[in-house]
């Protein structure tokens, strides 16, 4: 078995205690994924595991064996062209220090897919109805697992709104 990280097959660590986050950063030298709190409170370490957003700090690397992991490094095109959401973050000042940004962007990309599937959130008024209406309140609730200590949340929400409109168009 192996872990597929951004399309590349890698071995899980020998020591079962190693988190997916430390495996990515320290063993695979993919330092785009950030270590914030290392206890599941900040979202800076968010990556996609088989397409779903998860916290890599609370995932043992061994648990990702046999799975697909996508990190921020896989987002831009090989030519270097940025993903639409990366461009929107720049456009809307969705960052200041930038430390939370990879987690914010990975999280938002999975969030867009959850919305497309019609998954409800805590603020969705009618849980039995069809796909939720995308409002700022929905985006804020769905992104609450990603903290920005610089307080760029308004720009982050605007950037995500932009991407969702662009994708829907």
């Amino acid at each position, binding site marked *: 078995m192996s872990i597929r990280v951004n399309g590349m097959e890698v071995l899980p660590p020998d020591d079962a*205690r190693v988190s997916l986050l430390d495996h990515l950063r320290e063993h695979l030298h993919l330092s785009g994924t950030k270590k914030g709190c290392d206890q*599941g409170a900040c979202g800076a370490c968010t990556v996609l595991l088989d397409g779903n*957003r998860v*916290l890599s700090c*609370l*995932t043992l690397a061994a*648990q990702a064996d046999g799975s697909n992991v996508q990190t921020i490094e896989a987002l831009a095109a090989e030519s270097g062209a940025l993903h639409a959401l990366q461009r929107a973050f720049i456009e809307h000042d969705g960052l200041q220090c930038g430390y939370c940004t990879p987690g914010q962007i990975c999280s938002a990309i999975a969030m867009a897919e959850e919305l497309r599937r019609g998954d409800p*959130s805590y603020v969705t008024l009618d849980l039995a109805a069809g796909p939720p209406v995308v409002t700022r309140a929905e985006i804020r*609730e769905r992104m609450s*697992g990603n903290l920005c200590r610089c307080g760029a949340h308004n720009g982050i929400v605007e950037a995500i709104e932009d991407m969702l409109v662009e994708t829907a168009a």
Partner: protein
Amino acid sequence: MTPFGYARAADRADALARVGSGARVLGGGTNLVDLLRQNVEQASELVDVSRLEGAIRESDDGGLLIDASVRNATLAAHPLVRHRYPVLARALLAGASAQIRNMATVGGNILQRTRCMYFYDVEGARCNKRQPGAGCDAMDGFNRYHAVLGASDQCIATHPSDMCVALAMLDAVIHLSGPDGERSVPLTDFHVLPNATPQTETVLKPGELITGVELPPPSAAVTHSEYRKVRDRSSYAFALISVAGGLAIAEGRITEARIALGGVAAKPWRATRAETALVCVAPTPDAFLAAIREELVGARPLSGNGFKIGLAERTVVAVLGALAGARA
């Protein structure tokens, strides 16, 4: 973190065999990995059950059978849960963040441990749950988040789950498998109050594994139910108070009331006294308040959490009021 081995359970029998030989059960890891890293818990072996079959299916009697490895996010989004058990969908969605709900399993959620900060503070605090007989620094400490019902002089911690509050309100039954075979326990009997042994949190026996949760067919008050969580910030925080409520009303009288409280005790608190007080009465704010006050007669405030009693009263009145209004 002490060294441990990791194995992924091939099937339920394999999981049981490993649990029987002392392995700790790993679900999504959102609580256990943190506890191991903080050295609150130690393990020599982990058995990962999160990849076992995770099905959600209707039972023969029209209820719902949920495998223990189902992820919280999957359960919350399931059409049968959203339509028939809205209180459960809302409670799940009130918990943690989207990332954590994608990881967390139903079995792990039931077995998650308190978020009492003194429990977590291995180096700096005394905790009877972590080290029986050591003392409790929460008693005279920062106890804003702690229990007002069912606490003891040994422990005042609360159970952190939102999902379990909804399960208590729904009369959910937990299916267990162990060396002596299979058995079922109502969710409301699964967690135990601290008394003199706060280290014992559930009736789970050594070698036993949670295999699933069963919900009875939805009654009228379940179909018409809601979950409201009051916390220090509007999302991604543990509850100060939460309320799972359901009402059925016919000809201006309550025919069925269901209420469970979160954030108040070491277990999800089914408010049976309040429920009994509401049967056959008119659904008015005064009746809701009188009923929840009956439930909270035994509430004991600590130095920092007396506000929880009034907050619980107002939240119950608000939730039931909204349900009664929506029905009218």
